[in-house]
């Protein structure tokens, strides 16, 4: 399973390195979303500083939706998924590989977006340990859920509209917990940020385990 996961992750990242869709489309999109949040808050600097963690995670959520969709649109073209099914790779390995590839792209995006909120929203970075730990756990959750739901909506006629409807409410607890953890790390709230990590860890564990167990059925199902 692990070997298959490495193969699939390397394949997806290689496709990404060649096609540069995340770099040329998803990253600019996420930065534009940050700019639009600035317009929505009318340059209100204190408000932007307060809202920065939430806006950051919303931008990650929107980009995560695109990354999940992209992860399976590369399989849908030329019926590549049939090749993947017939390759003899374990479905659990395919799931983990795809999740790692989506997660790696999201981590790179988060680094860029962090720069974005520092520049645009005047965020001062503090509590690096909590920031990084919560970001990694959240990314694992978003990637695992994104790949699981991306797989099941792949074969459907209405996948472009169905995936956001399915995934956005599912990722609601991640956005909530990650925002609270970041607010605590950036000293915007007095709450204990570390306890949100448990919740993010549970979410990631549920979707990683759920994906490993059900990915074969999800791929065959649609």
């Amino acid at each position, binding site marked *: 399973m692990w070997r298959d996961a490495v193969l699939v992750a390397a394949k997806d990242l290689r496709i990404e390195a060649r096609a540069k869709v995340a770099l040329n489309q998803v990253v600019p999109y996420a930065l534009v979303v940050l700019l639009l949040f600035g317009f929505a808050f009318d340059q209100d600097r204190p408000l932007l500083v307060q809202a920065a963690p939430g806006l950051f995670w919303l931008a990650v959520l929107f980009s995560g939706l695109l990354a999940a969709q992209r992860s399976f649109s590369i399989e849908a073209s030329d019926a590549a998924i049939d090749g993947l099914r017939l390759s003899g790779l374990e479905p659990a390995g395919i799931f983990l590989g795809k999740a790692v590839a989506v997660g790696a792209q999201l981590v790179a995006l988060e680094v860029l977006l962090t720069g974005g909120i520092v520049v645009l929203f005047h965020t001062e970075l503090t509590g690096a340990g909590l920031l990084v730990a919560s970001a990694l756990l959240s990314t694992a959750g978003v990637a695992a*859920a994104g790949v*699981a*739901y991306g797989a*099941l*909506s792949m074969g*459907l*006629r*209405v996948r472009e509209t*169905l995936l956001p*409807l*399915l995934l*956005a*409410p*599912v990722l*609601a*607890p991640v956005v*909530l*917990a990650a925002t*609270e953890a970041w607010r605590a790390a950036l000293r915007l709230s007095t709450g204990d940020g570390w*306890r*949100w990590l448990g*919740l993010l860890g*549970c*979410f990631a564990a*549920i*979707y990683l385990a*759920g994906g490993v167990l*059900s990915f074969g*059925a*999800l791929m*065959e*199902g*649609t």
Partner: protein
Amino acid sequence: MKYTEVTSSTRASSSALASSYTRATRVLGWAALAALALNTWWGLWLSPPDVVQGQFVRMLYVHPAVATMCYAGFGICALGSAAWLWPRLRSPRWDRLAVAGAEVGAVFCAATLFTGSIWGRASWGVWWTWDARLTLTAVLFALSLGYLALRRAVDNPESRAMVSSIVAMLMALTVVVDHYATSWWVTLHQNTTLFKVGPTVHGWQLATMLVSFVAFGLVFAWMVVHRYRLEVLEEQYEAVGLQSALEARRSEVQGLTGARSPAEVPVR
């Protein structure tokens, strides 16, 4: 062969349903209507206004019962999905039960948000507040809409049952995480008042509230039974529809080729 003839032959050949109601569901429906009427009468006329909440206490005779039925609906969906996924129990019945629970649960969830919003405006002064239980119910509503949209998007019944059961299970687990997330976040909502030792609701209020639970429970049961049977009818319709299209094509070809028997005509 015409559609009606096909229907009657299918009906004769299997235990097909003729409609979504039976004598028992009619009795259930009338009982639900009678209980709702009793609930309205007791809730609006017999039960006195509350010392603290005044007339707004009458929402107590709608909102908690409706919210409970919403959770019951989603509970049935989760149970039906779990049973379908269990290989020994696998049967289309569980899938039908899951969709019936989810759809009726979604209706009651919308009603919960609607009545809760009215009550919130009356007692907290706002239509909506970022309280844990409210937020969770709103997310639950969005999840149920996603689940129902997914069901409509998959055509093959077997695939639909498999995919929607897995999604229902994943969503049920998400709800548990969501519960903690929202309750850690903030809470304003009233705690349980009825199902605990020494309830804080008494007399007419308690009696009317219990009647509301019976009334909405009966409405819920009636809706779930009908939705379940509607699913059976839909499956029948799909089977009959295919059969009828085949028959129509055969007779069309037969008309063109003269007196050849249907067995000789290739079906394309």
